[in-house]
């Protein structure tokens, strides 16, 4: 099996690579279109800012390449948000795979204020699809984000911070997770294994 991690100007690639290594899977890190298109599975990671990342992808034609992939693709964090239609982060048009909009966390006018971005471990529930095979409801994953994808028809996992939102999305061959499976202890490792076995 050939696994590719898409290389672009958004961090955390190393962590994803090490997490794969821990479960005994090799991966190539590349922005080469042919290598991406010929891979069996693709991970689209990302930590950073939406508009800068989209500009980078567009300059290299990777936006069109990613949208048209037929094999399983897993977006992580910013990667997942970029797979949505639009992000409020610098009013950015994204890849449009998922219709769910990406919005900024805002504290409600009443009630205690929470910290934004959300940083830390939160539970995920209403788990759907085999990405969560063997994972019980309300297990904890590690999140770091100030923007979130709203709930919608493609939601396959939910988390609550201020309000419920999409912890994971899926449409056809495309999967996205808001949290960092590569940093979510054994629960995250199980999800990465599940993705590899899709």
């Amino acid at each position, binding site marked *: 099996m050939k696994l590719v991690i898409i290389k672009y100007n958004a961090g955390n690639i190393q962590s994803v690579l090490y997490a794969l290594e821990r479960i005994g899977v090799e991966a190539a890190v590349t922005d080469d279109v042919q290598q991406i298109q010929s891979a069996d599975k693709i991970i689209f990671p990302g930590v950073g800012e939406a508009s800068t990342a989209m500009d980078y992808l567009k300059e290299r034609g990777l936006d069109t390449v990613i949208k048209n992939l037929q094999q399983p693709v897993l977006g992580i964090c910013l990667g997942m948000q970029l797979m949505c239609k639009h992000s409020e982060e610098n009013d950015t048009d994204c890849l449009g795979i998922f219709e769910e909009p990406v919005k900024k966390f805002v504290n409600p006018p009443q009630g205690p204020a929470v910290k934004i971005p959300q940083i830390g471990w939160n539970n995920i529930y209403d788990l759907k699809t085999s990405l969560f095979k063997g994972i019980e409801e309300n297990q904890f994953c590690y999140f770091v984000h100030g923007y979130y994808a709203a709930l919608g028809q493609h939601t396959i996992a939910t988390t609550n911070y201020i309000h419920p939102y999409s912890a994971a999305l899926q449409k056809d061959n495309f999967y996205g997770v808001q949290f960092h499976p*590569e*940093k979510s202890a*054994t629960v995250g490792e199980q999800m990465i294994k599940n993705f590899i076995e899709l």
Partner: protein
Amino acid sequence: MLTKRIIPCLDIKDGRTVKGINFENIRDAGDPVELGALYAAQGADELVFLDITATVEKRKTLSELVNKIAHKINIPFTVGGGISSVEDVSVLLQNGADKISTNTSAFKNPQLINDLAKQFGSQCVVLAIDTKKEDDGEWYVYLNGGRTKTTTKCFDWAKQAVDLGAGEILLTSMNNDGTKQGFALDITQQLSTNLPVPIIASGGGGTMQHFKEVFQDAQADAALAASIFHFKEIGIQDLKRYLHNQQIPVRLWEK
């Protein structure tokens, strides 16, 4: 629900984990890679790994050690000690660190925080502050591992750092550190309720109740400790079960 984090801290000197009392009298506490992996397996939510001699001896944090830890650890970890440039951080992140912490260098050159946040994002910039309550009842910033006093108040510096782009604050009370008499609740609460970023309380945690107090009374987002974990005085799983029973949200560890 977002949970409160328990963070074991691994102070590193010459590649070994050490722990001093009131920043002095350093004792050996084992191999940091093994300890880190053990804590991750026991349900630690994050690790902090500080090269405590780095600033004083002008050494760079051992990026090789960071790399070894990154290969083995499946939870987030922060690296600090002697970080004074964007280049230092770049090397550590490339070696697998998730976040970096900066202390003295950032105080001397606050622009560093801004540069780091712009280059790598606020989420990986942790500002560490060593603070001490003086006779006038005010908390002041100390530098160089607690050796150098400044006239800047802790809250003022914390606020400035957050405005510059610091994503979290690791607050160590020198009055409490190593005493096992409890965390500094007043300054922790002041920062946590007035600043929009997570506050990691450090220094003084000696009993499970101290952790409850710092979360419940001082609204800390995370609590950090070293020796009580290294010397197995408190087990991470036991601590989390206790906090859970006290209605404090924690990530319970399921096998």
